[in-house]
């Protein structure tokens, strides 16, 4: 076995975190390593947590780590934070709330910036998850902001999806708009001691009752979680959330839905890989050669149209490939 792969499978944190770095930085051999690693993946249970900024996702993730560790399960966390469009830099602040687990060798937390507009976030996240799977983490939590297609796409890598809402933020509407209603397996009403929590719960239940998916045996439960400032209730509530997630996992397995989710995940991975093998190098070469600029100029002046341009590009690309 490749020494990198061997080390990762033995749980070596340095090697694992470096491979994730290689994936993010699009090192040429990163995909090669993922190929070799792939056979060692697919055994973890993957949970996606999403919601608006400030919904308390990191605090919930932190509490879930505690709960899963009580059950002696090892945990990997992938925390996604936005890259500044102005500088290309990012402040990755999610892990602050999980720092108490930093010394626990059964927990691996990695922050991921959304990076460039060229896409690739979903691929990077998918592969980072694979690395954690190969490390043998029983549970992997992917935490991401539920706005923007890029961020939401990541959720397709998860088996169970938790959508976090907070009363008084107009979240229910945002949730519908963002299409989170469709992908949620579990809802959390966080900071449920605040005014408006009851109303949010009612609205959400009504929406869920109207939703057609509930017919197939799993009606997304709503878990209310009190303020993290009230530790006793908070830990009670988060224990319930962990329990609900476990129940959903069991349901997926027993109903055969897990296969469906694995299918969804595989589809996403193929699309990501295609994007990585085709779209990204293609766009990259078009940009660096200045061709994209020229084409857009032509299209703007109506000397060409996007479809003709795309056909020409495709033609040329495949010719070049065949030539190789």
């Amino acid at each position: 076995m490749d020494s990198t792969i061997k080390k990762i499978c033995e749980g070596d944190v340095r090697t694992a975190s470096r491979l994730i770095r290689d994936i993010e930085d699009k090192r040429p051999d990163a995909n090669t390593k993922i190929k070799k690693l792939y056979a060692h993946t697919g055994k973890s249970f993957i949970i996606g947590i999403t919601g608006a900024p400030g919904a308390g996702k990191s605090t919930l993730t932190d509490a879930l780590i505690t709960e899963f560790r009580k059950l002696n399960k090892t945990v990997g966390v992938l925390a996604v934070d936005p890259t500044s469009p102005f500088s290309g830099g990012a402040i990755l602040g999610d892990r602050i709330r999980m720092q108490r687990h930093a010394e626990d060798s059964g927990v691996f937390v990695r922050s991921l910036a959304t990076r460039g507009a060229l896409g690739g976030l979903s691929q990077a996240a998918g592969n980072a998850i694979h690395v954690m799977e190969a490390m043998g983490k029983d549970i992997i939590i992917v935490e991401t902001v539920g706005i923007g297609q890029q961020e939401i796409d990541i959720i397709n890598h998860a088996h169970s999806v938790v959508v976090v809402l907070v009363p008084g933020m107009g979240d229910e509407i945002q949730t519908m708009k963002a299409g989170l209603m469709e992908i949620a397996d579990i809802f959390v009403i966080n900071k449920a001691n605040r005014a408006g929590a009851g109303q949010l719960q009612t609205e959400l239940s009504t929406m869920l009752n109207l939703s057609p998916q509930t017919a197939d045996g799993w009606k997304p439960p709503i878990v209310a979680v009190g303020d993290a400032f009230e530790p006793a209730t908070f830990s009670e509530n988060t224990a319930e959330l962990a329990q609900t997630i476990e129940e959903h996992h069991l349901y997926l397995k027993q109903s055969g839905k897990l296969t469906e989710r694995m299918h969804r995940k595989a589809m996403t991975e193929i699309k990501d890989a295609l994007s990585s093998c085709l779209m990204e190098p293609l766009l990259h070469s078009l940009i660096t050669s200045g061709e994209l600029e020229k084409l857009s100029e032509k299209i703007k002046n109506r000397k060409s149209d996007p479809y003709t341009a795309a056909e020409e590009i495709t033609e040329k690309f495949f010719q070049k490939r065949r030539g190789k």
Partner: protein
Amino acid sequence: MPERKIRVMVAKPGLDGHDRGARILARCFRDAGFEVVYTGCHQTPEQIAAAAIQEDVDLIGLSCLSGAHRVLFPKVVELLREKDAADITVIGGGIIPEQDFSMLYDAGIKAIFTPGASLDSIVEWIKTNIKPD
């Protein structure tokens, strides 16, 4: 091959909560195009070293205003060495009297920035000295 993105960690070891400088720096690093992991206040050297390795950062910037730097900064370097991560550069800042500089350099701290150091000079130092392979 695209260049690597520089990843840094801004960490506050010890019990003091004076995070004004650390927070300004984190923001300034982001604006310089770095990816910045911020640990928040009250971190033990163990937490900092473990997090730095999990995050694969190139550099840790330690900020301490309580006077505990003499013990805590070297401890972070020592832990990184133990964990086979001596290649992670450690720099420090805060209220650090000049008489402590040599002791910190000897312990493996690569640069020290004290009050009054310009943000630009810190960013420049990182850009010059940190070249992730």
